[in-house]
């Protein structure tokens, strides 16, 4: 029953205009309509990301997905998170992934074997998980309403106050973790350097550049995270 309701919601949500009850699904507010539209775009981009046969396109569609999510954060009045999302994900992570694709000599254009033989099992698991999750979530939060009026819940001031009043210790611990990640990336690169004196597959020049890029991006991304 809930699944059918969800499907109906997804199909008819954007086009419904009239409001029959206080917070009915059939009378969405403007924010809800915007959220649904952006959500559809985001979900579609995500689907393309995981299904496209062109690897570079997958990364680009990922940008769309992450950007769509940033807009969703804005709609939920979490502006700081939204900008962090844009900066870190769209700005650095996707660039990193693109570098990774290039350095592993990912084929440009359509590659017929982008999906492994595990595809149908994966589809079954994913659909089953989606059905279960959506059913449970909709069943549980059918009537819950987020009041978006008033001061923004995720303004930079509110987030900063929370972060540096209540979350100082985890925040500092996180810096240690990032330092560990930095050291780890360097160690992996140095190990690769010792082994790549005469690499069997890659040319030495490529290996060297890949190392420097990995190192540099690792540190830059950590700076971004801070």
């Amino acid at each position: 029953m809930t699944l059918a309701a969800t499907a109906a919601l997804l199909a008819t949500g954007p086009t419904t205009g009239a409001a029959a009850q206080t917070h009915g699904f059939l009378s969405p507010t403007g924010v809800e309509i915007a959220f649904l539209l952006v959500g559809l775009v985001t979900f579609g981009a995500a689907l393309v990301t995981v299904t496209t046969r062109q690897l570079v396109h997958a990364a680009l569609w990922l940008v769309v997905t992450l950007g769509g999510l940033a807009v969703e954060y804005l709609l939920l009045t979490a502006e700081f998170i939204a900008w962090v999302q844009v900066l870190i994900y769209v700005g650095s992570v996707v660039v990193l992934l693109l570098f990774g694709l290039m350095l592993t000599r990912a084929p440009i254009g359509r590659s017929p074997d982008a999906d492994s033989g595990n595809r149908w099992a994966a589809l079954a698991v994913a659909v089953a998980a989606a059905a279960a999750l959506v059913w449970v979530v909709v069943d549980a939060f059918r009537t819950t309403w987020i009041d978006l009026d008033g001061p923004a819940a995720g303004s930079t001031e509110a987030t900063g106050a929370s972060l540096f009043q209540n979350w100082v210790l985890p925040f500092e611990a996180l810096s240690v973790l990032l330092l560990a990640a930095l050291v780890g990336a360097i160690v992996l690169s140095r190990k690769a350097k010792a082994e790549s004196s005469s690499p069997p597959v890659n040319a030495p020049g490529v290996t060297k550049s890949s190392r420097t890029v990995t190192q540099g991006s690792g540190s830059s991304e950590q700076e971004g995270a801070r």
Partner: protein
Amino acid sequence: MTTTTLAALVPLLPFLGAAAGLLVGRTAPGFARPLAVLPTLTSLVLAALVAVRQGGGAAVDSATELTPTGSVPIELALHIDGFAALVAVLVGLVASCVQIYSTGYLRSDPRYPSYAALVSLFTSAMFLVVYSGDLIVLLVGWEVMGICSYFLVGHYWETPEARAASLKAFLVTKLGDVPFLIGLFALATDAGSFRITRILGTVASGGLDHPTLIALLLLAGVAGKSAQFPLHTWLPDAMAGPTPVSALIHAATMVAAGVYFIARLLPVFEASQAAMVVLAVMAAVTMTGSALAALAQDDIKRVLAYSTIGQLGYMTGALAVGDRGAAVFHLLSHGAFKALLFLAAGVIIHAAGTNSLAAMSRMRNLRDRIPDAYWTLTVALLALAAIPPFSGFFSKEAVLGVAEHVVTGHTEHAPAAAGWLVLVAGLLTAVLTAAYAMRLWLLAFRGRGTEAPDHGRQPLTMTVVLWVLAVPSLALGGFAFRLLPDWFDGRDLGPTLTTSVLGTGMALVGGIVTYAAWRHTTALAARVPLGAVAAHPEGDAAQVEAEAIATHEPAYGDIAYAPDPADPGRLLLGPLHRHAAAGFHLDAVYTALFVRPVQAGASLVRFLDREVVETYVRGAGALPRWLGAAVRRAQTGNVQTYVSALLAGTVVLAVAAVLVATGA
């Protein structure tokens, strides 16, 4: 020192010598010889001292109970009567001679230290058996002798014959020892004690409840140890051991232990008429059968082994007619001349380079090479054949005289049937004994053909011992039959006219017939070349003997038999010869009766284990194996399939949990 202390030292000294020899034998081989010879010699002196002190008077009895051992007490007891004292002297004499002889015989054997230590241990155990006044202590010595015999027979363990022989000796004697042990327990239960004196007291007062059962059970152990029919088959094969061991263990002492045991407990056996008849039948069959077999053997040591069985048959015959004096008299004289026979045979084997009589009969001048062995062997063979005035004559006449005594109506100790059996079989055996003694002498020393191989001079230690033993073989009987009754039960042991004439006549007949047969066949010897000779001029006697034993079967086709047409035994025995050579196929019968069924049972058990039990085991393993194979197929190494399976399971569990939580 008291007589008891001296007597306790007699078994102790060789035991300490054996322990010390085993301990230092590897690190300090130079001590091995003194450690072997000196304790045994000292024990001989002490045993002689004990015998002089005891002097045939009242038995020396001494006992101490170390610790309570339950219902029937076990005591460290000595019981030294005239029998024990004299047998101990014989044991000491033969053991000393053998130890001295061994220093020459195995002079370059790398395993000499352990060999000498085992001989010392054996000597100690035999002293223990002789002196012990407690049956369990006696049993300890009895079993230690058995295990020493096993090790010493297998001394040349490189040869398959020695390995098989040691196992056979051990198993067959143990086959007798099991009923023996049960018999001892039954006896002790009836008498309430393991002490020999108390048991004899109980028997004298008629307190024995199951005399026949006990006597027959004990008889089985005696038959195993003393190589009496039907458990005698191990003794001829035991000749695969070194010759000194054959002389000590398998001729003079250990095999006599059974006879000595019956002599000690004779009243127990006399309490049962049936046991006495069984003993007489056993003795008669053993005597005649072994003498026939001895006449057909090719291996000189196997001739002597069968001869030993036959002479032990005389002793059991004497016991069957109820006279232990005659039995122990024959035991003493036989111990001396049979040890001499074996030691001389060892010299002959060394000199001739072969143990085959057929090969020796094709050798010239063997007697000139080894004059000492020639003369002493002649003396010993005359003693064996019971020609007066050698010692064997008097002791054998004592046995025959007692049998005749019973036959003529003095049946207070034994049934007349036993007397007849022993007398007839004894006279028949006298003929055969003389015949095989003559055959051995003729074939060994009157050979014609090529020159005997030169193995150099025999070591002095070996030849001197021969003369030492020749003295009692020559003279013991003549003096002893007058003195011994004082030490024994007091019955007259002197030869009677009838049996003397009969016995000597029989022996002469046997000798003369054999000589005639030999004259008839000896011409054939030159025409049929035969024989294999092991020539090791540098090696010691033991090496030559081991090689001779190992090559007998490949060279002649059988361990006991040689296809020699020049053998007088072949002419005398006629069609019986082949069967006699094989010991009347008793081994084959045992193989068919016992060994094959046991092996068949073993293979049946193996079949059951392999095919039936194993099937269940394999069946139990099949399901896990199939499961394992299935699981193994899942191990593709692809991480994505693993994660897929993991997440699928997670989803299923989550849905199940939600369903349960919502009560759906």
